[in-house]
């Protein structure tokens, strides 16, 4: 199963571990996009971790819109751990979305400043 090579995967025991700050710091450091992949809603191994992750992704989206980076760069997806092909599909979808949006303006600004 293939998926785009410019995706960096960070493993967490549950997407509930993802904090808003992780998402924001990633963009601050130059990431062009951030997405969380959690279990299907209702199937979270820790009950509500994936619901919390979704709320935090939404919070990050609002902030990213307010500061001109663009909320669509952050996304939440849900799938079952056995759905390998779907995982690849999501990766491709996210990759295409970000390519269309272009590089993170923060990254460009930082490069200019350096």
């Amino acid at each position, binding site marked *: 199963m293939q998926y785009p090579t410019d995706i960096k995967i960070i493993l967490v025991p549950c997407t509930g571990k993802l904090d808003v*700050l992780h998402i*924001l710091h990633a963009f*601050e450091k130059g990431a062009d996009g951030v997405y969380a992949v959690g279990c299907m809603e209702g199937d979270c191994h820790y009950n509500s971790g994936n619901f919390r992750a979704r709320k935090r992704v939404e919070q990050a989206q609002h902030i990213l819109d*307010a*500061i001109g*980076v663009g909320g669509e760069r952050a996304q939440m997806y849900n799938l079952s751990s056995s759905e390998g092909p779907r995982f690849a599909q999501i990766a491709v979808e996210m990759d295409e979305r970000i390519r269309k949006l272009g590089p993170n303006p*923060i990254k460009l*600004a930082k490069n*200019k*400043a350096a």
Partner: protein
Amino acid sequence: MIVADKKPIEEIIEEIKEHEKILILGCNECVTVCEAGGKKEVGVLASALRMYFLNQGREVKIDEVTLERQCDHEYLEEIRDVMDQYDAVVSIACGVGVQFMAEKYHDTPIYPGVNTCFMGVTEKRGLWTERCQGCGDCMLARTGGICPVSRCAKRIFNGPCGGSVKGSCEINKEIDCAWQLIVDRLKALNRLDDYEELSPIKDWSTDRAGGPRKVVREDVQE
């Protein structure tokens, strides 16, 4: 606790946009509980502002500190040595903290990052509601523990006013009619006869009307 709500980031940006070295100062108490001004919120605000300014082509120094409280001298003193590094502070403590900071650090502009709203309770995470307005002369013994000053939109002492509908205030059906609550409570306490006692005219001089207030306890002063 004191309940506050985050100011929109656009408003904060407007306050600080002329500055280049900014400290975001949080508070570990009330504003942490109502998720408006604690360490987490400091981190989020600082990151968002750094990215905003970068996007504008400016690299603005934005540091993060969270104090235990901003209403006691000793905690505000903790940052004495670093204050000269900043040309502005955004305090996301309640209005008390913002003002105390301004008093202590006379030469540095201190901007508010939250709107301080009321003294209230956490009904559930994400929902905080008002309970007390600090009138200075607590009458809760007479009303079964429910305050007509803070919970009645007309602060009526001999209520209800006749505008309530099915236990909701006339101004908004999501607001309980305080007097319905009081009647229900007096009933539960078997004290419905107390309802007919006429509540005397309030002395508002202990409230805001009497001017800025203070509490003095000589027995504990050094």
